[in-house]
């Protein structure tokens, strides 16, 4: 029972060639390099591995990456739902313009986003100036990291909700209206449950992206040990010290988390499709 073997004969040519090339390229570029993280961690042995990934500075970086990615994704849930709703349901000046700009965080290099937010929120920056009298500091704090991650994750939520909202039949809402439901009841009882799987998918994507994000965060974070060092930065600083085993240990934990997020996402999507059919 070989994997990737043809089930039924198909008359089209090129199966062997295209499949062979696909598997070769996939292995050379993705599978073999990724497995290096694993093979570089094994020689460490269990005790040093645990010691390395539970060092206080590393644990603090995991905690920071998680909490900031979580709060950013949560904020994106609201901002994304709002934007998708407004773009699909209302007509207003500048709508097309906003719709196109939703993709900007995808297209803008992360380093550029990083220096923009760091400059905006610096004590002499456009927004930092306004916040300074209130004694609110954004740069070099977790709040700054959250702001950068909100920007990065935003399009994921909008672009997953938008198609679902567009395909939704408004008759359902009309029926609810005829049966005497208020607009708010219709939203919480009808629309939100229907949009929930897509919302969850978008938020999970934003969260997963936020955990691994590097370029947009490091400029605003200030990278203070134990306070504003994110997990990818820990990998980077271990690499700079040529601590390859340590770097791959931290990376292995991060990869395991990302892959389980991906599996969770697949489960959510299957559930979503089931919901859609019924």
């Amino acid at each position, binding site marked *: 029972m070989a994997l990737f073997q043809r089930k039924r004969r198909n008359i*089209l040519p090129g*199966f062997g060639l295209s499949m062979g090339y696909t598997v070769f390229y996939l292995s050379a*570029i993705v599978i073999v390099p990724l497995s290096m993280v694993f093979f570089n961690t094994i020689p460490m042995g269990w005790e040093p591995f645990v010691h390395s990934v539970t060092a206080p500075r590393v644990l603090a970086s995991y905690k920071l990456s998680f909490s900031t990615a979580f709060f950013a994704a949560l904020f994106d849930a609201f901002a994304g739902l*709002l934007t998708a709703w407004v773009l699909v349901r209302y007509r*207003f000046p500048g709508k097309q313009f906003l719709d196109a700009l939703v993709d900007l965080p995808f297209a803008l290099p992360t*380093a550029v986003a990083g220096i923009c*937010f760091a400059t905006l929120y610096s004590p002499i920056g456009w927004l930092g100036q306004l916040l300074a009298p209130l004694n609110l500091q954004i740069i070099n704090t977790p709040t700054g990291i959250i702001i950068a991650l909100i920007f990065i994750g935003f399009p994921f939520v909008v672009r997953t909700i938008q198609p679902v909202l567009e395909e939704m039949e408004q008759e359902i809402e009309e029926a609810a209206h005829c049966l005497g439901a208020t607009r708010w009841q219709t939203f919480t009882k009808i629309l939100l449950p229907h949009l929930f799987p897509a919302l969850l998918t978008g938020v999970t994507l934003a969260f997963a*992206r936020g955990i691994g994000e590097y370029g947009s965060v490091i400029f605003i974070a200030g990278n203070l040990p134990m306070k504003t060092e994110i997990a990818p930065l820990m990998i980077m600083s271990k690499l700079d010290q040529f601590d*390859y085993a340590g770097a791959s240990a931290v990376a292995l934990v991060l990869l395991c988390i990302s892959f389980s997020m*991906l599996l969770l996402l697949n489960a959510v999507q299957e559930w979503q499709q089931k919901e859609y059919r019924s």
Partner: protein
Amino acid sequence: MPEPEISQDHPPVVKKRISDPRSIQILLIGLTYLFFIGFIFLPLGLVFSQAFGKGWSFYLEAIREPYAIEAVKLTLLTVAIVVPVNAVFGVTAAWAITKFNFRGKSTLKSLLDLPFAVSPVIAGLIFVLLVGSRTPFGSWLGEHGIKIIFSTPGIIIATIFVTFPFIARELIPLMEAQGRDEEEAALTLGAKGWQIFSKITLPNIRWGLLYGMILCGARSIGEFGAVSVVSGHIRGQTNTIPLHVEILYSEYNFTASFAVASLLVFLALLTVVIKSGMEKHFQKNSFHL
């Protein structure tokens, strides 16, 4: 068929969709604009205000400086290699996945998406672990005069990894929807494999392919984390545009940094405009990681 007459006394009944009250609409639209001002417009405005803060001549000097030009050249070289390589792979993988039935198809599809789940820093790390000068394979390559990490090939490979899924992901749903009837018809009419591909399949997927290539190109230009790990930051040699922006910024040369960054912003805006134009043209609302 006669035109239906509309009496002046009774205006035509327009089917009125239920919608939210105007006040709620204005509130929500206002909130959306507020979010966009804070997170999109202000950063964009800042880039240009900083970039031109010391006038045109300074701006031109910053982007014409030799190191900046070297960075642009390296980035263009990277894109020129990464996009075609990933395009060939994308088309091949999409052909294998959509034109045949085989065991493990969904596994293969998930494997294609793997790079999306990997942090850019890890994407760089894995190539340092594989071919870095301290690894057996890397030192063997070094003895034969081949340097990959801290040099251009490393930047290209890391970028290939990061942008690996873009084109295949664009083509697979498209080719699944198109089915294989046309190719099979061509085959029964005596066309050879290459003829089928170039005369039937390629014209059918050309817009999807172009779309995927644009996304792949945009990401290749802007990739920072992965490239930063494998580059070694040697000015004039292994600096791409985003790395050059970072170096200028960390040297407190903010105006020059934003001037170079503005080039990337122009490209990002161009990408967004082309993307939205193509989506409107083809009435598709696709979603990308």
